[in-house]
């Protein structure tokens, strides 16, 4: 896959936008017992939407932001990259894939689009909640009783944030983004 300047900028801007939001989310809504967990992962609302608009470059931006933000508090280690960093790369891509397969419109024009959106968000959040906290368990960051709490909070924290933050962004801005020279949905 050829990488263009546009792709680099999309990734960099997405990461730059999501990085401070990730820092806020870690500080504002921490979950007792779960280091690096946030009860409302605000940046997810942004990088999910960026992924739907700009493909893998939006997801990469989310990945970089999460890794940099989490790493600052919880160490620049393989564990942090593997759990939150990778998880937040996989999650929006799962959502993007479901959208593409279902041929839904990111503008959320019909009821079907909304259903696909909600289902895609829930599935991707669950899959990645499982990923993240299994990695955490394997690295000994959390203990077994907290594994299921971790999965549940990830699922709720991410899906809530994506649905609450992401839905109005998709609804109001997709048309604007489609008119911008940066939009790549049709080219994926």
């Amino acid at each position, binding site marked *: 896959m050829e990488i263009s300047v546009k792709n680099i900028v999309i990734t960099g801007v997405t990461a730059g936008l999501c990085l401070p939001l990730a820092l806020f989310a870690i500080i504002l809504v921490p979950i007792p017992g779960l280091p690096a967990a946030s009860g409302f992962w605000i940046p997810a609302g942004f990088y999910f939407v960026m992924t739907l608009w700009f493909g893998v470059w939006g997801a990469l931006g989310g990945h*970089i932001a999460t890794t940099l933000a989490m790493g600052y508090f919880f160490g620049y280690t393989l564990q942090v990259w593997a759990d939150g960093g990778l998880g937040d790369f996989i999650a929006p891509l799962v959502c993007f894939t479901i959208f593409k397969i279902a041929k839904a419109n990111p503008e959320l024009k019909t009821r079907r689009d909304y259903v696909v959106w909600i289902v895609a968000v829930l599935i991707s959040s669950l899959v990645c909640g499982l990923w993240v906290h299994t990695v955490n368990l394997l690295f000994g960051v959390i203990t077994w009783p*907290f594994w299921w709490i971790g999965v549940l909070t990830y699922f709720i924290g991410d899906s809530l944030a994506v649905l609450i933050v992401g839905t109005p962004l998709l609804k109001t801005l997709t048309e604007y983004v489609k008119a911008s020279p940066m939009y790549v949905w049709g080219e994926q």
Partner: protein
Amino acid sequence: MSRTFFIHVEEKSPLLRLHPLLKITSLLAINLLAWIIDSPVVLLCAIVAVFLSFKIFKVPLARIGKFIVFAVLIVQAVMVSYILGSTIPGNMVYYRFPWGTYISDMTLVYAFTMAAKFLLMLWGSTLLLAVMRDIDIVYGLVSMRLPYYLAFTVNLAFRLSTVFMEDYAKVRDAMILRGTNFSEKSLVQRARNYVRLGTPLMVLAIRRMFEMTNALIIKGFEPGRSRTYLYDFSLTIKDKVISFLLVAAVVLAFLLKTFYGLLTFPGWPFNG
């Protein structure tokens, strides 16, 4: 004074003049050492060493002060997790939970140990990130044979994060001036207020993407094209020695723990 991403640091600071590759290697080494070492006493000594390093390397200690809150958050998260969810064997069990875990005399020591790991990572990272400039990230990652465009992307993320934080503050002020109450009692209303911040931030992000793309293309930036560099960051003998020592420290710690049972939990004086 020299400007780094987050603060100004004295020009004389030896850490500032460290080779970019060494800054990144040191960052990774501190984090890996924190991960490997399980002995609470050794971790405590390492934390003290990091604190002293702020003074020795002339990095403003006030930097740590800003993150006391975060440190507390980390400690509470870890403590709660291990107090409520672990089965650390010890000489005495103080309380058994209905779900099968218990609090022993070693539980608190272990919880403290885990908290110390994260604190070491947090403050070690703070020390090194405080002396990072954009060229350190770029040259450091490129020295590790990563493609330039990847290093540039990470650099862009850091740079733009401060720009977006300023945008966030301006938009928030504008909303307050139009009657928004960000301290609403209702969670739903609070969420709506914060969500509304998203629209202008996204619009600004999209506009910046287009302008920045044009600007970079005109400046000849092209991923994959070979380029030259203004600065010469050749590794000196001193740099090579330091990098060897850093890698050796990590390897040694791993070997001591794995094959000799040192640096393990609970370590002296808890194991008698």
